[in-house]
């Protein structure tokens, strides 16, 4: 399974979200999920199974397929809840 974190320029924010998702996967002991980051222009629906993006670009990323919107990109608890939820749905944990 693959998760893609997306933001406007694909440099700072999405990268931070990627690192945080990786940290959460570590905590959960999940090893076979790939996480990467990208900018909004390059991201296409085939790039990943699930896309994580912040509220402010929710509109632009709506066409990507399975999208998870983050209310706050610095809130680790929110991210943890949402990552766990996705993993449960996909039967990874």
């Amino acid at each position, binding site marked *: 399974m693959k998760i893609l974190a997306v933001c406007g320029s694909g*440099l700072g924010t999405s990268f931070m979200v990627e690192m945080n998702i990786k940290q959460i996967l570590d905590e959960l002991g999940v090893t076979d999920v790939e996480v990467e980051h990208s900018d909004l*222009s390059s991201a296409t629906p085939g790039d990943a199974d699930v896309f994580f993006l912040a509220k*402010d670009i929710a*509109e*632009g990323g709506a066409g990507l397929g399975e999208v998870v919107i983050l209310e706050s*990109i*610095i809130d680790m608890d929110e991210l943890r809840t949402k990552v766990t939820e996705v993993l449960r749905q996909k039967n990874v944990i």
Partner: protein
Amino acid sequence: MNKVLSVLVDILREPSILVALMALIGLLAQKKNLPDIIKGTTKTFVGFLVIAAGAGILQNALAPFGDMFQHAFHVKGVVPNNEAIVAIALTKYGTNTALIMFFGMIANILIARFTRFKYIFLTGHHTLYMACMIAVIMTVAGFTSAPLIIIGAIALGIIMSLSPAMLQPFMRKLTGNDNVALGHFGGVGYALSGLVGKAIGGKNPKSTEDINFPKGLGFLRDSTVSIALTMAVIYVIVALFAGPSYIHQHLSNGQNYIVFSLIQAGTFAAGVFIILSGVRLVLAEIVPAFKGISTKIVPNAKPALDCPIVYPFAPNAVLIGFFSSFVGGIVSMLIMTLTGGVIILPGVVPHFFTGATAGVIGNATGGVRGSVLGSFVNGILISFLPVFLMPVLGDLGFANSTFSDADFGVAGIFLGSLANHGGKGAIIVGILVVLAIMVLFSIRKRAKDMNSNIGA
């Protein structure tokens, strides 16, 4: 023996290999497994070469623009864009940039460990860009080899610590806690916006979030779209002024001048797109390693993060800030056309990202009025700083692009004017004085804390 040495020097002189080595060290320090190490090191190596390839495309797309502008208005027009100028500079200053970046990150960790400036600057692309600008200015000032790297790295470490520290009072006010810092080199503009907001906001300022505001400009956050659109508009306007005969004869080889301009604008966006992919590849392994090492060495440090972290706090202020800053850029451009000299054209990317951030910070201290006026001031600031920055960049000052965000201007002008007035010695003294002040400030605070602890 000499042969071995010269091969070694050849290897280390090649920036792509150097950053790959940095990634390798980072991956080893994180104790990754072999496939990950090979993958990460190779990607970083290729990433650097991707940046160089993008630089070529970008330069070819910008050169005709410079010619057209000069022909039409008889002055030089410059579009500030970090990616453009860094990619061009890296072809010549790549090795020094890589080394200053590497040791600058170490300096940042050491400052966080031993002073009260506990900020770890995690916005990797800005670290890279700042390292690049420092490499250029220090080289122009006459530094070479080890002193260039050491002094440059200390300067970078200081800027990485000071910029977030200066913004922390506003971040506390905005986020309501003290856990996260803002790590983005538009810092001086944001602080100014915060102060403007404070000065004019009054007692109970009305927040931008209390007004209904049409949304739907979200597509501008897609940097490829916004760069291509604005460059197309600017390019076509300049082409109209330059006239078809000049362009057909000298630049486009007979191709219709409007079509030619649109293609060049698109090519510029394509160049930035390629450069961004390269930057992403280069940073992918280095930043996590930096984060991992710093959390081990300085456990209570605050991460300083990229500017979009503040956007969700005030989405209306994001749009207001962008527009207001852009208007500031246009007003500045008009002033410059009246005064003569270089003309800085408002670039949408810097005005969007820094204007929006200034808008959010201005709103936090001074509501709607703070947001509008704060980001307007930011727009003027990032238009005029490049005018004074370009002369200290040596040959690079003659490129048709330059560094865009406020801290690049302030730090660059600071270092550059030290060099102009006292050469290398002045730069060394200047940097050490700043560092000494930071250390003294930490010691005094610590002594004060201890006294108050005893008192309690």
